[in-house]
């Protein structure tokens, strides 16, 4: 059953929106990263937006996955935004001292799309 699981990716304008909902275990995270890179390349995507608004806990492992995705997307010349981080999650990340420095952040989807548009 785990093999069938996939993180939904939605195309919005020239961007890919990823709704991070399920538990990102190792395999799923790698699959997601590979799929995103392939689609950014083949579709000439301008930006990838990771929506984490339903994620209640982000630990250092998930942080690393998000950073890795951000890095690989940037290597392909696209921007990577993370949106919708919950206040308690943000405060916890600060307290833990882990950095989410390979993704840009925006308050919500609208804001991320606006910034990606401005860059056009």
């Amino acid at each position: 059953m785990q093999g069938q699981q996939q993180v939904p990716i939605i195309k919005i304008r020239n961007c890919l929106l990823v709704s991070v909902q399920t538990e990102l275990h190792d395999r799923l995270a790698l699959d997601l990263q590979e799929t995103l890179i392939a689609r950014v390349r083949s579709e000439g995507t301008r930006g990838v937006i990771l929506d984490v608004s339903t994620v209640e806990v982000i630990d250092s492992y998930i942080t690393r996955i998000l950073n890795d995705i951000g890095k690989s997307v940037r290597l392909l010349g696209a921007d990577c935004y993370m949106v919708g981080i919950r206040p308690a999650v943000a405060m916890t990340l600060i307290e833990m001292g882990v950095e989410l420095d390979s993704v840009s952040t925006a308050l919500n989807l609208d804001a991320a799309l606006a910034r990606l548009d401005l860059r056009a």
Partner: protein
Amino acid sequence: MKTVESEIAAILSGSISAITQRSIFRRLGGIASLPVQRLSPRDRQAVQAEIESSIRLFAPARSGELISSCARVLGDEPSGRDAAAAPPGPELDRARKLPIEGERDIAAARLEAWSEAVRLGLSKFASVKVATAVSELARNIVFYAGKGSIDLRTVRDGKGTRLEIVAADEGPGIDPAKVEAIFAGSFKSERGLGKGLVAVQKLVDDFHLDTRPGRGTRVSCVFKHDRSGQ
């Protein structure tokens, strides 16, 4: 057959996602698949307390309504009426052991820790910290030792109210030089062991690491209500 799971699921659907519901029923263990009328008063009370804290956590907006619907379903049998009507109040000085044997146990442990924090009366922020710390500890067990366990204990005594967490495994253990490097910030592992331990240490009020190569690893930490609750 009207099982606990089918009855409660009918009430919760629409308010709590199917994934979250599954974790809730998993926490109940075998009780979830029993027919409602076969519950002993004690089971009934346990189910009621469990469902109630989950509802408060995941569907706070409609909690009153959902909790009373569940109480009605569970308490319809005359034998269980008293138990279901008893005020659920937070149980203190309770301990539970969570086996950690694979990736799916990480999410379960996180949820368990979160509800334990909420039950203890910790703030939203503090509860997320507890869940995050337990997530780190559970991941380390799965990644490096394969299996182990996490003990959660809520304590209230002269020294205040607190949540004690002990993560233990019989895995390879960590070399003393490596431990030093980890806390000095100069060690980086493939999968983030160093970061995880440092993160836990920063999140908790009290942290103790006991590890030796070949002898497993034991991390004990404490969240105090007074400080974290602010």
